[in-house]
């Protein structure tokens, strides 16, 4: 669910001033600096570089620049959301239009129409309160279980829409 270990490749460019005994450390550090925390539509969020595959490849000198390019293969921990999956998320904001919840840095919007009709929005406390069970309320920092209905991708971010309108979805904990 969401988290995967995948094998990726990244062309790491190194300035000639690093062509010395610490080159390997420089390569690995540059790789981590360049990929950790990035987001792509294809692989999702790159959370952490787990391992750089050895032996390191030979660098290719870029003619006329002096830089060397190393196609590093590495194992990464990524988070990639999928339509149709059920996830637990933390509520960050409640409005009359719906609920905003997060799985790490991924925001998922649950529209008013995807919230059971027996939950009413309470403006004053910024929460959705169950008509049946008053103690049951969804508010900021609540944990909810939702199903991802759709995902939006752009160059550097993901946003998703979800629903809690099904059995076993909604408030948890």
């Amino acid at each position: 669910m969401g988290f995967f270990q995948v094998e990726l490749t990244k062309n790491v460019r190194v300035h000639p001033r690093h062509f010395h005994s610490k080159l390997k450390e420089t390569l690995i550090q540059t790789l981590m600096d360049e990929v950790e925390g990035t987001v792509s539509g294809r692989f999702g969020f790159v959370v952490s570089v787990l391992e750089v595959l050895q032996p390191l490849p030979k660098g290719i000198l870029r003619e006329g620049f002096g830089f060397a390019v190393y196609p590093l293969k590495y194992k990464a921990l990524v988070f990639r959301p999928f339509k149709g999956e059920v996830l637990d998320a933390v509520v960050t904001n409640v409005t009359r239009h719906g609920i905003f919840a997060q799985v790490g840095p991924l925001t998922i919007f649950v529209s008013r129409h995807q919230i059971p009709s027996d939950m009413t929005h309470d403006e004053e406390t910024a929460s959705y309160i169950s008509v049946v069970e008053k103690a049951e309320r969804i508010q900021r920092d609540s944990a909810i279980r939702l199903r991802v209905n759709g995902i939006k991708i752009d160059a550097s971010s993901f946003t998703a829409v979800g629903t809690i309108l099904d059995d076993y979805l909604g408030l948890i904990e």
Partner: protein
Amino acid sequence: MLNRSRVPSGLRSVQLVPEQEDAATLQLGEDFSSEKAQPLTISEVAILLSRKRDMMRDLEGPRAEEFSSVFKKFLEYVERFDRYKGLESATNVRNLLQRYESLDPFEMACLANLCPADAEEAKTTIPSLKHKIDDSSLNQLLQDLASFTH
């Protein structure tokens, strides 16, 4: 199905993920096939990320304490939703799941993460399980999983 009329206007015009991707039927696309990607449980992720954090803290100089906001947000997330705290429980959960060979690795991670109370809940939240495992074996698995939770 994404109901377009219910999507806020800001989300309407944007590119949507190809329709063939659907976790409910285990269609995760080429890049996330079981040969190419290994699904991890939240507990395994919690172990990997806290190890990384400790490793970074041991470094001296400007590199220490330098984490991306993506890293920090996921660390916070997995610490909150980790049901089987610690390496021993995480390993027990993994070993238990591996014994159910009919299950897809993605389904294994979902089961561990959602920890459904019974077979009906499991098959509703993870629909691909429906024809893979009978209710009594699934209930047994869920009971065993629950015994590792804290």
